[in-house]
């Protein structure tokens, strides 16, 4: 199982039947592959649809039916389309049960930076600020380090996406949850030493007394 799959499988365990879920571009998208059997998830795409599915067979794509990245998708039975005002009312009004987003950095309080590397990459925040502020649960799915540099930091060096703490951070090394005392390591990947997680993390980690092996 590769790193990305490991992360996506773990995040998928957080899915709840019949919930409304928004997956960010990139790694988070993989989570859709691991929806537990028998569970129905309503996937929202912020460009204006709930209930989209896989890319249709060649020749059956429609230029009016894409995901937020512009890729062709299908409409599942019961799908519903709406405008951007409604789409973000759903996101900002607390109607999204879970969003899964990529991250550039997360600080010791669980604050996320994921939309800009000043002077280098200025994509814009898109819907990220709205999602982190408005979704009921926010899971960051990312690699633990970037070329050896910790992404979970004491203090953000990149501009934050929101003031609000995320709910959970899932990396290839383990699972962390922000608490009033700081980040708590709740799960560690099989075969990985806790010390290795701590070493790869710039922010102080509280080791949960109930530390478990990372589920999948």
């Amino acid at each position, binding site marked *: 199982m590769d790193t990305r799959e490991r992360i996506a499988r773990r995040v998928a365990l957080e899915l709840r039947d019949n919930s409304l879920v928004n997956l960010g571009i990139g790694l988070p998208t993989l989570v859709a592959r691991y*929806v537990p059997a028998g569970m*129905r998830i309503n*996937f929202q795409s912020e460009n204006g649809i709930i209930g989209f599915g896989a890319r249709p067979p060649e020749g059956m794509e429609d230029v009016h039916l894409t995901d937020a990245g512009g890729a062709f998708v*299908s409409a599942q039975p019961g799908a519903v*389309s*709406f405008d951007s005002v409604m789409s973000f*009312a759903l996101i900002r*009004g607390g*109607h999204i049960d879970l969003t899964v987003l990529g991250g550039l950095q997360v600080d010791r309080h669980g604050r996320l930076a994921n939309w800009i590397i000043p002077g280098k990459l200025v994509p814009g925040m898109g819907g990220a600020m709205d999602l982190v502020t408005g979704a009921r649960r926010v899971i960051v799915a990312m690699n633990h380090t970037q070329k050896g540099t910790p992404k979970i930091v004491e203090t953000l060096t990149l501009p934050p996406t929101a003031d609000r703490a995320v709910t959970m951070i899932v990396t290839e090394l383990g699972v962390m949850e922000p608490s009033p005392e700081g980040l708590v390591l709740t799960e560690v990947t099989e075969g990985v030493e806790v010390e290795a997680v701590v070493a790869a993390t710039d922010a102080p980690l509280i080791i949960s007394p109930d530390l478990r092996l990372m589920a999948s």
Partner: protein
Amino acid sequence: MTPQTAPPDAPAVPHPLTPAEAAALVPDGARVMIGAFMGVGTPGRIVDALIERGARDLTVIANDTARPEVGIGRLIAAGCVRRAIVAHIGTNPETQRRMIAGTIDVELVPQGTLAERIRAAGAGLGGVLTPTGLGTVVEEGKRRIEVEGQDYLLELPLRADVALIAARSADHMGNLVYSLTARNFNPVMAMAAALVIAEPNEIVPVGVLPPDAIHTPGVLVDHLVRRGERIDHGHA
């Protein structure tokens, strides 16, 4: 096509409720939004079931109180309502009588402000600035905020414990389509309550409502109320 999820006929909304089951989910003292405009677009079977179970001390948030024998008016006349947050009570002398007698509190809100306040709750806004009500009794107790030389009132979000919604059609995932002027406050109320119960005229199979024609996404709806009659179609 490879569906990513379980078969779509797995109902997202649990089995439809009877009106009595729906009414049981509305506790005495609850804040309840009820769709309708002068009785048009009222979830009438749920209203009747609330009266039947003797609901008490409800705070009703609605456009109006209709007439004594119609829609929300019936709820007023039955003594279920302690407080009404509405834009209009002019067609219901019973509401006026109870207001004067002190058995019901009425908070009058301009209709557009009512819509925006409910929407603000549903859309996660902390409030909206509006010129409506400036220099009138509506301004009492509110903050005046100046933006670029122009004054506005700060109007705050209006939430509810339960929203009771009427629709023309629902599918079994709770997607809703409304009919003509019966739409009114129903869609916005479906966004602003902790629990949303919809009473459609019909429940149709999942997949038959076109995505572009659906007015309220089913994810906002917690329960549907069962149609009154089952059509005998000879099916086993």
